[in-house]
């Protein structure tokens, strides 16, 4: 697996092919950030809570999938003729559903009793949940080690078109994010989705229409957690990641600049911000690699935050954010 990263890194030079290859890489990373950011935004819009437990929920989802695939070989064990990819997708769907349940449990156990309390307390609670889940993850995976999640799209299966390298795994990531965006768009037109938008806009008026605020809260956490899990899974699948480990939750933290750029309360903003950050990070990693002596290793990791700070100076509410929204 390490070898695959070397191959990717070897696409050197500054040709057009390299640019396109890196652009695709950035879009795939951006797709993961988009998924994470969408979860953040949906939970924030519906409950006004900025959750810090997002990354660990994502890791829990990814861990479950890794558990299915690597440890108990489910459902491949029973359906031996099933292609590996399809078997993985089935485990992934179950893992995402389980993450949604985790989201509902968090909402019911920790967030619902706090409704009406200062937002700061609630945000601190999510931070506590994050620490608990991360510790549990460390116990299950093992400190410093990782749980393989399989390689459903090959470790380094690529298609080369005119010198542009297209890893299949990245295509799958982008397709999954696109599918998530489309499903969300359709959902927000449905009866429940409309109710959710109404509740986000004016909760009391929505309650007066017979919309149960509690149900909307639970639903928002379920959707948010599911989106996080999808992001977490694709962040763990090679060659992007090497299975689930203690750094998996950091994808959510790195998606943070995305929601700041897009605006905390904007779905479109999450998509735009997610892709912007992903592409910026990959491009910086490639084109600034020659300045490693000056900038140091891992400069690309702070690029999202630099972009975020630049945006905060010019547009404090993000590209699509509502002005009245309280800043965090």
């Amino acid at each position, binding site marked *: 697996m390490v070898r695959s990263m070397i191959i990717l890194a070897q696409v050197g030079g500054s040709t057009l092919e390299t640019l396109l290859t890196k652009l695709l890489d950035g879009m795939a990373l951006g797709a993961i950030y988009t998924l994470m950011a969408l979860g953040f935004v949906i939970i924030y819009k519906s409950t006004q809570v900025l959750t810090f437990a997002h990354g660990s929920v994502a890791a829990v989802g990814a861990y479950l999938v890794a558990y299915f695939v690597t440890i108990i070989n489910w459902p491949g064990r029973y359906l031996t003729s099933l292609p590996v990819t399809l078997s993985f997708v089935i485990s992934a769907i179950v893992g995402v559903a389980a993450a949604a349940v985790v989201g509902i449990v968090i909402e019911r156990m920790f967030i619902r009793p706090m409704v*009406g309390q200062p937002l700061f307390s609630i945000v601190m609670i999510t931070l506590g949940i994050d620490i608990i889940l991360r510790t549990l993850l460390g116990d299950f995976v093992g400190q410093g080690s990782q749980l393989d999640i399989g390689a459903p799209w090959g470790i380094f299966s690529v298609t080369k078109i005119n010198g542009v390298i297209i890893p299949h795994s990245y295509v799958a990531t982008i397709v999954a994010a696109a599918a998530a965006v489309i499903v969300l768009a359709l959902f927000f037109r449905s*009866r429940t989705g*409309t*109710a959710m*938008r*109404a509740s986000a*806009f*004016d*909760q*009391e*008026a*929505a*309650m*007066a*229409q*017979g*919309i*149960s605020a509690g149900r909307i809260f639970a639903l928002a956490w379920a959707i948010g957690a599911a989106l996080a899990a999808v992001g977490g899974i694709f962040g763990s699948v090679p060659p992007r990641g090497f299975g689930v480990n203690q750094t998996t939750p950091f994808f959510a933290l790195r998606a943070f600049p995305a929601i700041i750029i897009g605006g905390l309360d904007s779905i479109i903003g999450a998509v735009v911000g997610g892709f912007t950050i992903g592409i910026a990070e990959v491009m910086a990693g490639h084109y600034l690699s020659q300045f490693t002596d000056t900038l140091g290793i891992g400069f690309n990791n702070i690029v999202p935050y630099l972009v975020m700070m630049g945006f905060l100076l010019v547009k404090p509410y993000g590209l699509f954010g509502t002005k009245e929204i309280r800043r965090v």
Partner: protein
Amino acid sequence: MLEVANLEVVYNDVILVLSGISLKVEDGEIVALLGGNGAGKTTTVRAITGLLDVHEGDITKGKIEFKGESIEKMRPSAIVKSGITQVMEGRRIFAEMSVDDNLRTGAYTNKDKASVLAAFDRVMELFPVLKDRRKSTAGYLSGGEQQMLAMGRALMASPQLLILDEPSLGLAPMLVQQIRDIIVGINEQGISVLLIEQNAHMALSIANRGYIMETGKMVMDGAAQKLLGDEDVQEFYLGLHGEEGERKSFRDVKHYKRRKRWLS
């Protein structure tokens, strides 16, 4: 149909807002609930529709019955399902959403597609203005249209009792007339109406009965015609002074009369 008895409401555990009010809405009636600012009209509505929680309010005494069933402990969604909807004070439409989507949220509790469509047709018949604006963003409608949208939204749940909290607020006199006629039209469809108003003249002109509240108490009730003819109501709410309608100089009013309140 709706019976509120001896209702006492306290905000934040200490602020007594309603001290034992009672009111009744019979089947097919329009009942007006009048009172000045801070009288407790909106709190009464919140108590009936279960929205006190949002404002840290509690019912500490008394009961609210709808169709013989006690509803004071029910959740807002259950109350809507049982047949009471409201048009909130200040309209509170979902400004970012389209007119259609606003109406759809109103029908949230109704899962039966055919009856939602029927309700939609009824709303369009009552408010033809909304027909041309179905796709437009609700926030861009004029004040009158927004009020109609709010009323249409409340009607989408096919209620048996409609509570209107100050529908004439901030509307031009012509529009107030129009809203008044629409309320009569809604009532003619067999829907009972509890009309909360500061515009006493408008409310009493269409109501069967009326109640007058002041600082959390009911101070007067009776047939609308009787209230319209009452000297005190005329003086305090309708701005008519004296028998011939001539204006009384404030200087001529005795000190205790200037401070006159309903109970003193």
